[in-house]
């Protein structure tokens, strides 16, 4: 009898997402919208944005479980892996967060590296196309 190749079962994860500002319209809202999203396990932020239809250029501050993973104009969160039950908060690029009100907050190592490279104290970032991942 021919032995079937071992196939690892595919699991889905559910994450809770809130979109704030004009990007809420990608999920049927106007100013704010929250929804549960099912993704393949090992999915990351770029998969979530693709699923929601949010263009990466329209994504501003992004949090996973209260940890800042991205800032307007940077692309530090795209490969952050999501897990079952995660909460992701995504803001439009026009949402402000002055540095004095975020100085010292918890952030991902990837974002910290990106801020070291592009300067930690900016309200918005404008990366050259060559710098975009």
């Amino acid at each position, binding site marked *: 009898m021919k032995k079937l190749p071992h196939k690892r079962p595919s699991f889905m994860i559910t994450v809770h997402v809130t979109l704030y500002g004009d990007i809420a319209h990608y999920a049927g809202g106007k100013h704010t919208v929250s929804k549960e999203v099912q993704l393949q396990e090992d999915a990351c932020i770029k998969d979530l944005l693709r699923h929601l239809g949010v263009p990466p250029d329209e994504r501003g501050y992004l949090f996973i479980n209260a940890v800042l993973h991205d800032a307007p104009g940077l692309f530090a969160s795209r490969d952050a892996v999501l897990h079952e039950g995660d909460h992701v908060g995504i803001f439009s690029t026009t949402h402000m967060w002055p540095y004095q009100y975020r100085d010292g907050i918890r952030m991902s190592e990837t974002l*910290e590296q990106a801020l070291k490279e592009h300067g930690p104290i900016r309200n918005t970032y404008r990366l050259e196309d060559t710098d975009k991942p």
Partner: protein
Amino acid sequence: MAKKILRINMSELSAAYEDIPEKWAKWAGRGLTSAIVSDEVEPTCHPLGPNNKLVIAPGWVSGTPAAPSSGRTSFGGKSPLTGTIKESNSGGLSSQKIAKLGLAAVILEGNPPKGKWYTLVITKDGVAFNDASDLIGKGMYEVSDILWEQYDHEPAVIGIGPVGEEKLSNAGISVNDPEGKPGRYAGRGGLGAVMGARGVKAIVVDDTGGPGVEIADEDLFKQGRKKLTDAIMQHDLTKPDGALNAYGTNVLMNIINEAGGLPTRNFSAGQFEGAADISGEKIAEMVEKRDGEGMTGHKCHPGCIIQCSNIYPDEEGKAVVSVVEYETAWTLGANLGISDLDYIADMTYQCNDLGLDTIEAGNTIAMAMEGGQIEFGDKEGARGVFDEIREMTPLGRIYGQGVEATAKAYGVHRVPTVKGQSMPAYEPRAIKGIGVTYATSTMGADHTSGYTIAPEIAGVGGDVDALEDKGKAELSLTFQAATAFVDSTGYCLFIAFPILDIESGWEGMAESVAGVTGMDISGGDVIDLGKEILKMERKFNMRAGFTAEHDRPPEFMRYEKLPPHNVVWTLTDEELDKVYAWVDGEE
């Protein structure tokens, strides 16, 4: 015509126009109020006694043609709330009108006989001392309406509510907006009580026929104005339909909540489950849904091009109050465990009418909740606090004194204050940088004391690592200095956003000031001038008895872990002491 100082003596009911002495000549706005208070107010005086003064000063560019968003008025004196020097500034109509009368500052001093109250009417012809006994006991909405009706030319109305009349420490000073309504508050630090102690219920300012503001170098002024205006109009945060225009300052509610830095139920947690329901996004939704007098993108003074104010509507679409700011929605909402915008708007109206600073008022209610008098989340209980104050019951008088008095009355030790003034809507255990500014500011815990500018512009870019704790002292000092300068310009502090990212905007701010005043300053001088102001303020505080040991966050933040990140305050006292070591070391 050179600008004058208008000195009003309430003991003698006299007014005198004085030349500006050389030592004050370069200052305006906060720089001028702090210079005058430093020189003329004995730091150890009782804030409500005869030796304190209230100084009112427009900024350098206020009253000039079309300088963008330049309607801030600085109010200064010794604070009854903190015992420190205080500058609290406001939008509204007053700054431009005082400036157009050719005045650099108005100094209120002396006391009239007990029980005498006055409305001062300042015009190009001088000062009238009108009996205000018919206004006593009235809230600011009624007072503003009466005075707009009574006097021509839609004047500025600066006034105090019943809390200021009673000289309670949480009394703010209201300025009316372009629609004549009160609510633009120099709220922090109890300067309304200092005005009340002078026997002044209201000041009406009519600039009709005034000389206007002289501009020393018209070309330089126009060049600077254009650069700054372009920066404001381009920047994502300040441009039309940008963050501030669309959602107001309350655009921050959801962000700070997502970050775990939203003080909740008296600083016991960093996230509030009802944050989205009291956010700027929700206000925008309510304005659209109720489709009436409500609006976002409202301007608090003529010539503002950022327009971050709002008018909150009731269910029928009628205007309830302007403005529901982020700090207001937080202090009366998340901080009390309440997620009802209609309630928050109603309580904001109560604050505006009674003459209370909203931040201190919400934190005061939180003390009553922490102390068990009211349950967290109890809207009716919270509303009762305002009833007590309006009726001036003994308990209401305690509430009117603010957070520390109320905390003592209820035996509360989780008290979120520095130098007697309560913290605004940013948790320093989660947002450490703001904690350094709260702790060391010359004003007590204040979120507007340290607005960010780019360190490389300030000349510290290569020396600090903004992501490390050990760089925070130097950054905080730089931010505090930049803020002291902007507070002196008359420009709204929110120009800090575009001028941080757009260097030409930074130059434009300095050039417009140089153009108006004729002073030889450029962007590179901003920090040094700001530090001069901070030094005056710090030295006043030192003479009043304050030491480095007063520059500390509340003790509970060192040992109570803040969810969701379960963090405590970790910066050392030595690090905090670096912020003002350059002044302290001189004594």
